[in-house]
């Protein structure tokens, strides 16, 4: 399976990575080599194998639905790059081509 420059553009958009052209070119080459190596996965006969859904054997981990004190707005906002004391502040979401 070969990778195209369009694939790299598409995946970078999905991953929300604003890569430079030079980075995309470098990644195209690197990812192609890695995917070529990973291609050996396709040679394994998996017709009789189920997917691993979890490593252990846990079933329905439940706890009582008890209210505990929340972290609180002050602590929750302390690490925010921009906040106004009760909200995280971000730019307009409507202006985006990607989200439109």
């Amino acid at each position: 399976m070969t990778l195209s420059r369009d694939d790299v553009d598409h995946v970078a958009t999905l991953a929300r990575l604003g890569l430079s052209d030079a980075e995309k070119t470098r990644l195209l080459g690197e990812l192609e080599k890695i995917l070529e190596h990973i291609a050996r996965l396709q040679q394994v006969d998996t017709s009789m194998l189920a997917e691993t859904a979890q490593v252990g054997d846990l079933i329905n981990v439940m706890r009582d639905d008890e209210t505990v004190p929340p972290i609180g707005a002050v602590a929750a906002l302390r690490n925010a790059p921009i906040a106004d004391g009760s909200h995280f502040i971000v730019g307009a979401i409507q202006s985006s081509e990607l989200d439109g």
Partner: protein
Amino acid sequence: MTASTITELAAALREGRTTPDALLADALAHLERADAELHAYLTVTRDLAQQQADAAARILRDQPATASPLCGIPMALKDVLCVDGIETTASSKILRGFKPPYTGTAVQRLFDAGAVCIGKTNCDEFAMGSSTENSAFGPVGNPWDVERVPGGSSGGSAATVAAGTVPYSLGSDTGGSIRQPAALSGVVGFKPTYGRVSRYGLIAFASSLDQIGPFTRTVEDCALVYSVIGGPDARDSTCDGRPMDDPLAELRDGVAGMRLGIPREYLGEGTEPGVRAAVEQAFAVLEGLGATLHEVSLPSTDVALSVYYVIAPAECSSNLARYDGVRFGQRVDRPSLTDMYLQTRDAGFGPEVKRRVMLGTYALSSGYYDAYYRQAQKVRTLVGQEFDAVFQQVDALVCPTSPSVAFPMGSRDDPLSMYMCDVVTLPANLAGVPGISVPCGFVDGLPVGLQVIAPRFQDSRVFRVAHAYEQATEWHTARPRFATDAA
């Protein structure tokens, strides 16, 4: 301190030969000397350490009989473990300045036992790497040769124990990130059974693989730290609810009569001759102690690397979606939200993180999901079945921890050759089984590690085999110059 174990320091504290204050002063002085060359630390937590040393002194004075063996003893934490109010960056620019609002479970359990945390250790960015060269804040030197890597991703945690600054530290292991640096730095490093140690407060890389575990100078110390951090935790729903067995209970039972398997694929062509020779000598030691050795096969070892490099990037691409410049970490401000995301993540993530996020996003994307992610999860089942099958034949596996000794910085600039570092450690993460690395010799002055792997929840058996080997040899007593020319 520089040569001491937790067990020795705990005895010294109780016999009045030292105090938590004196141990802390020693550790900080050693850190200052060693770190000028090693760069094992990103943050030194003097104030926290002093508070904890003072509290430990009170506990040792008032309740010496019930105090934990860890009480008053300095330690360090990989910078992916959250501590309330202490900068935690995962060695990434995107988290510079981030001070978590809470402390993770494994760390809190150590703090409750009286541990004295002297700092946060350097690592590969978001724990992605095998050399600690992917840290956004510069690489870590190997205490045995500072021009070489200490392994990774928990390189700082391995190096600081090897150098003799602290007797133990915590790291995290997603594909070998505790065991491989332990091997390359000449210390003991343990990855517990998946689900035995809570990941609450661990910055997530790949959630079906990540485990927290200790670095120590002896296997006994390793079991001791594990006995404190392990066990059920309601804050991590993937943490197993079964109570912990005492990991020290069968430590001294020896290996006489045990059946030990040598996976032939783990000593393949990529294994350096010196590593092979050291590990084969270790096999002979174990045989001399009464174990029987059996060649076994894990046929999917080769393809396991491919499974890992689909699943780990896929999970990381999802886990790292949270770094969007909104709630924490760095932001590159732009008028539109999407531009802010794009520029923040481009500026904040380093090359290896971007590579894995791209690879994982691709593997999960429409049209490729079945061929990559779903196929990898099926082959992962096969990897697990092969472990189950060999553990029908043998009690534990013994093998190299790394195909190579510590390599020079900058010598593996091709991503694939770096990924090969983990070829004999990552299958244990895929299968969720416990593994340890214990020092087993040197090649040209560089340490070699012996890996012991056991079935899930047989963590005690890993310690039992490793301890028997360690006690029959002197390798664990060797120290680099940082530990011998000090104080």
